[in-house]
């Protein structure tokens, strides 16, 4: 399978703290890669860097042939249209209704008429179990619904890749299962995914490969089957909750 994302020798520090000490990995088209590691290991920073929301101190990030780390804000727009980011808290626009939140990227990047937008949004809301909430504001939705709406908004431009930042954090089992099913559904349609999570059962259920970030580097990257059966440090110890 073709590489769609490539990260090479990614290094980033915050003040005196060196968080990433040369992270390298690649993601292939159509696969779902799980990125796991303890809190403070810089998983979200790494994910944000894939679309230029953060820039490394050194190292390279490629989306297909484009070197994201060399692009300017204006040039990054094309990458961000193709690589969607589902934020941990949804990051919904609280001054806009559910409909307006979903219409926002369509208005910015497509020439769809209002009718076409309505049709697309209604269909998407149906798929995400959010029908009938078009006129509500995000504050009126439950945490699970907000996450699903955030995911729906990330998907509305039909991207090649979705970056999931802790999509199931803080959710009840019902909403966790819903999100898990959605990720699997997207994967079945060929959408590439990178999943940052602490939720090992979800990672095992939806990912093809798992990368473990530990002490600023990728400590292990392998298939779910291998990772699951591994007794090596830090894989088994992280999975069993012995280490952060």
């Amino acid at each position, binding site marked *: 399978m073709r590489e769609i994302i490539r990260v090479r020798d990614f290094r980033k520090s915050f003040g005196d703290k060196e968080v990433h000490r040369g992270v390298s990995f690649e993601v292939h088209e159509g696969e779902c890669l799980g990125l796991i590691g303890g809190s403070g290991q810089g998983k979200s920073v790494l994910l*944000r860097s894939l*679309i230029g*929301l953060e820039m490394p101190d050194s190292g390279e990030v490629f989306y297909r042939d484009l070197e994201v780390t060399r692009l300017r*804000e204006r040039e*990054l*727009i*094309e990458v*961000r*249209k193709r690589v*969607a*980011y589902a*934020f941990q*808290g949804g*990051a*919904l*626009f*609280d001054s806009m209704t559910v409909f307006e939140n979903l219409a*926002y*990227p369509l208005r*910015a*990047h497509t020439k769809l008429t209002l009718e076409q937008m309505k049709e697309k949004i209604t269909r998407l809301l149906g798929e995400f179990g959010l029908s009938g909430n078009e006129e509500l504001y995000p504050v009126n939705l439950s945490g699970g619904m907000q996450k699903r709406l955030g995911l729906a*908004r*990330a998907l509305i*431009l039909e991207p090649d890749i979705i970056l999931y930042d802790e999509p199931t954090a803080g959710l009840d089992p019902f909403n966790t299962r819903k999100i898990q099913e959605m990720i699997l559904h997207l994967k079945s349609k060929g959408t590439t995914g990178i999943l940052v999570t602490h939720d090992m059962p979800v990672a095992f259920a939806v990912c093809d490969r798992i990368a473990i970030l530990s002490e600023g580097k990728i400590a292990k990257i392998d298939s779910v089957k291998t990772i699951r059966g591994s007794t090596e440090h830090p894989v088994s110890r992280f999975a069993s909750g012995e280490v952060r």
Partner: protein
Amino acid sequence: MIQRYLIDLIYFFGGLALLFRSFVSELIRNKVERRLLMDQLYHLGATSFPLIFITALSTGMVMTLQFGIGLAKFGGQPYVPKIVSLSILREMGPVFTSLMIAARAGAGMASEIGSMVVTQQVDAMRALGTSPMSKIVVPRVLAMLIGLPLLAALANIIGVFGSMVVAVTELRLDPDFFLLKVATTIVLDDLFSGIGKTIFFAIFISITSCYYGLNVKEGTKEVGIATTKAVVTSSIFVLVGDFVLTKLFFIL
């Protein structure tokens, strides 16, 4: 200590200059979203008007009362319309309106943008391939550039009206005499000098408030700090800027 303070100051003014440059370049390059601009104009104009009304009315009334009582000793009450209208048009109207707007709209801008940063809404705009500059900064700065001069012009009218009310009821001046004195005193230069300054004040207030809002990093606690800083700094800019601009306008 002083070195650190100076470095921070250079960063701050550099940040303001960069934000202003980005605003201008965004304004030139991209079409302004009318819906966002109208929203901001409504928030600025309609919701600030009662505050401006009370401020301008009481300023005109108090000034008239003070000058009236003071000048009565020298038989100078007939000069009250001239002095008060000139003061309002050249200074009090534009400056008080700007200070009120800095406190109300500037605080609103900094806290709203700061909250958007904390809740990752600004990141979401970027992640969705849109520019926070065109969605957040441009409509707010532009609304301020349009709204503040208009509010200052209204404040001038209301201030002079308040002055006339006190002049007629307390100083026993004839309303026709009052209006005649105002009309023969004020020239276009007075009007433009006052309103012209508000264009600069609009930039000071909106750019400073947007800057503080966008630079919130440490969570909700910093939103409050950014809001206070936005109000204090833009008020200082208005007051110091007023002196500099007045001097400049006199030279020109």
